[in-house]
């Protein structure tokens, strides 16, 4: 069975500080991994995705994520957080059967 774990429920950072959101997965084959962002009361927007090749992937809004197979992780990073980045972030894994499983999300707050 596949699963995604986001160990941090809430994170607060100061504007301009760096950010790392953790994501760990469990899957028996090559994972296809995604990060989404959700503003309050809205649908989800894709930030970036990994399916092969370079393990460091770049996304929109200055985000990047690094796939580490040995650690079963796909952590999301941003060097300098903006107030507009406050939202909820979801890591997701897609299996070969097209089943898409999400983590429980990390809510990010940004201090002025």
């Amino acid at each position: 069975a596949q699963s995604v774990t986001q160990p941090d429920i809430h994170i607060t950072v100061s504007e301009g500080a760096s950010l790392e959101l953790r994501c760990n997965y469990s899957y028996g084959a090559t994972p296809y991994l995604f990060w989404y962002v959700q503003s309050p009361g809205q649908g989800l927007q894709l930030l970036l995705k990994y399916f092969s090749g370079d393990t460091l992937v770049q996304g929109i809004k200055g985000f990047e994520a690094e796939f580490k197979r040995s650690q079963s992780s796909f952590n999301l990073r941003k060097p300098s957080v903006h107030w507009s980045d406050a939202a909820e972030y979801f890591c997701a894994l897609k299996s070969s059967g097209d089943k898409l499983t999400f983590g429980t999300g990390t809510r990010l707050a940004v201090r002025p």
Partner: protein
Amino acid sequence: SQTIHQWPATLVQPVGSPLSLECTVEGTSNPNLYWYRQAAGRGLQLLFYSVGIGQISSEVPQNLSASRPQDRQFILSSKKLLLSDSGFYLCAWSFLDRVDTEAFFGQGTRLTVV
């Protein structure tokens, strides 16, 4: 380009009443379709997904059911709502057999069961 429509945006229903949420996709054929529920503080729970007409996989035994009467239409239903059915419901689609592509989400339906 492809678009996904989900309605209604908000819904308040009494306990024991039926439910029907509809989702349609335009601009593509044979999509994978998904229903998710997002309860407060509980992340996105996959309820159903479908790889074709009449093919529904249920992930969580519960009070809900899903149907796909047409290729690009996905319906979430309940015969009798429970208080615990309250939440934010999201429909999504992805390209069939393209595991390396993302899912695209509708704007969601906020369901409150009273």
